């Protein structure tokens, strides 16, 4: 789960990681007051969870309290990538910067450990730096048995070119950030940019913290936050899926896809594309889906106006074909089939599932390839 910038900065403050002075607000007159208190110039930053916020115009700067107020007026209520801005963070803008660094901690799958990543080339182009000049990225793999030690922090600070008191200050920030990462079960935590001011101080100007969803039971303060429409760039279908516990991702084609198992559903999207079709979504009903889950899944996919045909691909393992068939009938009863449906149904309790469908006059196919071709054909003929 992604935290808002102001939330992660609140945590940083608790751990005494230096951040710019600032305040959160929902009203533009208040932005004026905050700016008067902070002194100019200020940065006014939209608090939204979409990436590429800066490039999309979600961060504005102001040189007077009046200007700050009007900038906030522009941001509050504005839609960025389909998400309405409800809150802004007003912060002192650090003008006197000497350098922008990067520091982050994430997991390394191949080595099965956490890895600390640093670079003297921080800022919005860090991914570009990593891709084109990997030698400018410093990586320290953290042994899970012994953790991130003080000398690791000194090593990194030294490699970034800092010595003396600056080495101490920087290493302290790294060390504290590691503690935040462990205490909050971070999947990713980063400070970018980590600004070095002309006075030689370091400030975490922007922060990102993603908490591992599977660990949320250990962080009850964040657990109950239900993401509602308008706060994120999720579609109505994605929000509905989230409520029902289905894994759904919206795509931009016209063939709705439902399957069981993430790998199989991905392969189904690929097969549809292989035969010249365009998938409208990814929807995994998971293992052992009940008739009810199946009905909800169909409901979600059928509610997408772009969908012209639905392709259901089920290979019963733990999932039982008869349950799936019952779910399909249930959905038909509840909402009716407003669009053509192509079904491939094989595996556990296949005979019973097929009998249920046949009795209801619903046609099904044997192979995934055959069904994918059929779905593409139906979509091309205009549904």
């Amino acid at each position: 789960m992604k935290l808002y910038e102001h939330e992660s900065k609140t945590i940083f403050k608790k751990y005494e990681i230096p951040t710019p002075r600032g305040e959160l607000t929902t009203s533009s007159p208040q932005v004026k007051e905050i700016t008067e208190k902070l002194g100019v110039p200020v940065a006014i930053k939209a608090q939204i969870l979409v990436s590429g916020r800066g490039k999309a115009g979600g961060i504005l700067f102001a040189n007077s309290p009046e200007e700050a107020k009007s900038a906030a007026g522009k941001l509050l209520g504005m839609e960025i990538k389909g998400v309405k801005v409800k809150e802004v963070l007003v912060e002192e803008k650090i003008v006197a910067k000497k350098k922008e660094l990067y520091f982050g901690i994430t997991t390394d799958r191949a080595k099965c450990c956490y890895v600390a990543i640093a670079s003297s080339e921080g800022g919005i182009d860090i991914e570009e730096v990593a891709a084109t000049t990997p030698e400018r990225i410093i990586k320290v793999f953290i042994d899970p048995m012994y953790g991130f030690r003080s000398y690791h922090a000194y090593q990194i600070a030294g490699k970034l070119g800092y010595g003396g008191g600056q080495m101490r200050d920087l290493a302290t920030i790294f060390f504290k950030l590691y503690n935040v990462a462990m205490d909050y079960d971070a999947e990713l935590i980063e400070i970018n940019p980590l600004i070095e001011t002309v006075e030689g101080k370091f400030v975490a100007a922007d922060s990102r913290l993603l908490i591992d969803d599977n660990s949320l039971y250990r962080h009850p303060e964040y657990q109950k936050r239900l993401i509602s429409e308008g706060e994120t760039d999720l579609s109505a279908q994605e929000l509905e899926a989230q409520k029902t516990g289905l894994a759904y991702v919206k795509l931009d084609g016209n063939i709705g896809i439902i399957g069981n198992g993430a790998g199989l559903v991905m392969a189904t999207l690929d097969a549809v594309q292989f035969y010249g079709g365009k998938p409208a979504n990814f929807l995994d009903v998971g293992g052992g889906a009940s008739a009810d889950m199946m009905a909800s899944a169909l409901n979600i996919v059928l509610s997408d106006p772009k969908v012209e045909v639905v392709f259901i691909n089920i290979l019963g393992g733990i999932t039982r074909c008869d349950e799936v068939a019952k779910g399909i009938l249930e959905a038909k009863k509840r909402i009716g089939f407003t669009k053509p449906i192509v079904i491939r149904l094989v595996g556990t309790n296949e005979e019973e599932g097929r009998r249920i469908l046949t009795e209801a006059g619903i046609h099904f196919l044997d192979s995934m390839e055959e069904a994918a071709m059929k779905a593409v054909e139906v979509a091309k003929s205009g549904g």
Partner: protein
Amino acid sequence: MGIFIGKRTRVIVQGITGSQGSFHTRLMLDYGTQIVAGTSPMKGGAEVHGIPVYDTVEEAVEKHEANASIIFVPAPFAGDAAFEAIEAGLKTVVIITEHIPVKDAIQVMARAKQAKVTVIGPNTPGIIAPNECKLGIMPAHVFKRGVVGVASRSGTLTYEIATGLSVSGLGQSTCIGLGGDPIVGLSFVDVLREFERDRQTRAVALIGEIGGNLEELAAEYLAKEGYTKPVAAFIAGRTAPSGKRMGHAGAIIMGRTGTAASKIEAFKKAGVDVAEKPGDVARLLAERLKKKSISTRCKSEK
């Protein structure tokens, strides 16, 4: 004898009294897996399908000489269950549980490495050596004893490809689900090494997906080591957009890493046949084996 497991594998089911644990214990027993004990704290003395239940793994091992365990314990406690199995001296630990925090999984893998224990999973359907031993939740009917070693990052897609291998007559020697999480115990490279040594295995199928770089590392290994057995691969998620998580915690394209294109290119460079569709894997391997005049007959073991 499969890799990691076989007829002599003596299994403890951790979390045997839960609904999943109990249900799959029944199915594994039906398959012929030697389940010797189960554990569930505070339920010691009970029985599930005639299998004795103990409070701790230590006690179960003392009484039954087990060498493997399968874990059905809920996510918040699964990390500790794996630690317990490792400390009790079991050599193969299969973690079926999904949604285990990454931090816990990292600690388990470090401990396992230190103790030289094989961890399969978490979030895996398990491992099966057809006709010998099933340590998992996969539907048994799709598998047939044969010559292809299968390693996969997904569940249902594995059944799809295994079905193809069974129908074609090639069958499987051992089929392993690595697990759908970002941090898992086995890599494709670990499994490839074992399949190279395994006499029953004549060819290997790798089933990968977007996210991470396990496939690229496998390709690198195959190219460097001069692998002697034919390998075919299928990668799911060719058409997945970046930044969106496709169900598995591991299936997400981040920036430039983890794309299907990068994995497919790496495999092709290493001389691996890459299937366009799941149904093509069996055909590609059959062709390769025929070309190299490798027998696809497998000594039947009952």
